[in-house]
C-alpha cells in the first residue's frame, strides 16, 4: 500500500533521514521504533506531506505522493495524528472532528463518520461541546485519533501516541488501536514505548540516526538481544 524508497529528508542544512526504505501492506500494523532524535517524526511528516524529502520516492497505492500537493495527500487516504496531538485547543471536540472531515469526500459522509467515531469513543460524545484544550491528555489523544478517522482513511499514521500519557491511559490507547485495526484499517505507528508498540503491531522497523538498522516481525525484534538491551532495559 505504502512504499518509501531511498528517502533523504531534513530541515535546512540538517539532514534527518538517510536513504530510508519502508513498506506497509494493506491491513498490516507496522511500527517504527528508535531513540529520541532518530528521525521518526520526520519520517511521519514526510509521508503526510508536512515536509518534502530531498531525495527518494513515496507512493500510496500506486499514486506518487510527492507529486501531490500537501493538502491533497489526505485525499489519498493517508491520515496523520501528529506528535503531541495538535488539537485545536479553542475549538470544541465536535469542531475538531469537523475539521477532520474538511475535504469534500469526507464532508458528504460527515454524519456517518461522526457516529462511527462516537461509537469508538463514547467519552468524546459526552464531551462534544467541550473545548479540546481543557481535556486530559488521554482524552485529547482519543480526540486526535478520532479527528484523523473522520476522513475515512486507508492508512493511519500515529506519531508517538503514548507520549506524555500515564501507563493506564497508554493501555487504553493501544486497546483502541487494536479495535481500529480489527475494522480493517492499516496502521503505521511511531513509538518510543517499545514494549507496547511491538505488542500491537505485526512487524516493525528500527530507526537510528536517520537510517533503518533492523526490521522484522515483532516477535523476532522482541527476542533480539541488542534491542532488548538498548530499549527494554533488559
Amino acid at each position, binding site marked *: 500500500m505504502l512504499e518509501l524508497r531511498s528517502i533523504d529528508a531534513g530541515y535546512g542544512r540538517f539532514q534527518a533521514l538517510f536513504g530510508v526504505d519502508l513498506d506497509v501492506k494493506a491491513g498490516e500494523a507496522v511500527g517504527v521504533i528508535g531513540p529520541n532524535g532518530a528521525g521518526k517524526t520526520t519520517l511521519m511528516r514526510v509521508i*503526510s*506531506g*508536512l515536509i518534502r524529502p530531498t531525495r527518494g520516492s513515496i507512493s500510496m497505492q500506486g499514486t506518487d505522493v510527492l507529486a501531490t*500537493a*500537501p*493538502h*491533497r*495527500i*489526505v*485525499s489519498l487516504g493517508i*491520515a*496523520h495524528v*501528529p506528535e503531541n496531538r*495538535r488539537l*485545536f*485547543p*479553542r*475549538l470544541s471536540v465536535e*469542531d475538531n472532528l*469537523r*475539521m*477532520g*472531515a*474538511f*475535504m469534500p469526500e*469526507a*464532508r458528504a459522509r460527515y454524519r456517518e463518520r461522526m457516529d462511527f467515531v462516537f461509537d469508538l469513543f463514547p467519552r468524546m460524545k459526552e464531551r462534544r461541546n467541550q473545548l479540546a484544550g481543557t481535556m486530559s491528555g488521554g482524552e485529547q489523544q482519543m480526540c486526535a485519533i478520532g*479527528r484523523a478517522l473522520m*476522513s475515512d482513511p486507508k492508512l493511519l499514521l500515529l506519531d508517538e501516541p503514548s507520549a506524555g500519557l500515564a501507563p493506564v491511559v497508554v493501555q487504553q490507547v493501544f486497546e483502541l488501536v487494536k479495535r481500529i485495526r480489527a475494522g480493517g484499517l492499516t496502521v503505521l505507528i511511531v513509538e518510543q514505548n517499545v514494549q507496547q508498540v511491538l505488542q500491537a503491531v505485526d512487524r516493525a522497523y528500527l530507526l537510528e540516526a536517520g537510517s533503518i538498522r533492523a526490521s522484522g516481525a515483532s516477535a523476532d525484534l522482541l527476542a533480539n538481544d541488542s534491542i532488548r538491551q538498548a530499549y527494554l532495559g533488559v
Partner: protein
Amino acid sequence: MEIFDIYLLEALVNGILLGGVLALLALGLNLIFGVIDVTWICYAELVMIGMYGMYYLFSVYGLPYWVAAPMCILLVAALGAALHFLVIAPLLGAPPINQLLATGGVLFVLQSFATVAFGIDFRNLGIRLPVLALGEMHFSYARLLAFIAALIGMVVVYLFMTRTYTGTAIRAIAQDRQIMALMGVDTKKIYLVTSALGGGLAGLAACLLVLQYDVHPFVGLSFGPITFLICVLGGLGNFVGGFVAAFLFAEIISLGGLFSDLEWGYVLAFAFFIVMMFIRPAGLLAKRS
C-alpha cells in the same frame, strides 16, 4: 439638571450606536490579524474606497441604496482579496515590519488614488434620513440603521465562523497553522477567503458610514487610528476584546463630543488609551500577545 441628564443620556445612547460600527471595523481588523498574522494599516482606506463606491453607485449611477450596498460589499471584499494576493502573500515570510510597511504603502496608494481619481472635495450621498425623537432626545435613523446593520453583520460572521467548514477552518488556522494541510485545508485559499471577509466587513461599514458622514480621500484618518487603538486595547486578534473596547471608545468619543469639539473626543480617547496601557498593559481581555 434635567436637561443636562437628557443630553447625557442621548450621548450615551449615541455612543452605543457609534460603537456598533466601530465594533464592525475592529472585527475586520482582528480577523485579518488573528488568522493571517498581518495588520492591514490601510483598513480604513478600504472603507474609504467603499464609501466612494457607494457614492458613485448611488448618486452618480442612480442605483437604489439596497442594490448598491451589496455591490459595494462585494467590491471591497474583492479589494481585500486582491490586497492579500498582490501585497501580503509575497511577504508572508518577511519580517512583520515589512508587512506593516507594505500595507502602509497601500494606504498611501489608496489615499492618493482617491485624490487623483475623485478629487479632494467632500462628497455626500445626499440622503436625509429622518430623526427619531424620544422626548427631548434625538437620534438619527442613519445611526440606528447603522447600529442594527452592524450587529446583523457580526451575527452573520459569527454564524459563518461556527457553522460552516470554511469558517471553522478559519478559526482553526489561527490556532495551529502548520497542521492544516493534514486535514486537507489549503491555507492559501483560507487566507484569501479571510481577506475577502475582512474586505467585505469594511464594505459593510462603508455602506453604513456613508449614510452619516461625507466622504473624501482622507476620511480614513478620522476613524482609522481609533480602530487601531481599539484593537490594541482589546488585544489584536481577540474578537471579544475588540468588541468591548469598541463600545468603550465609542462612549468616550461620544461623551467627549458632548462637552467639546469632536476632535477633543479623539484626544480624550487616546489619553484613555495611554492610561489603560498603564493599568492593563496586555490589553483589555487579551489572550494573545
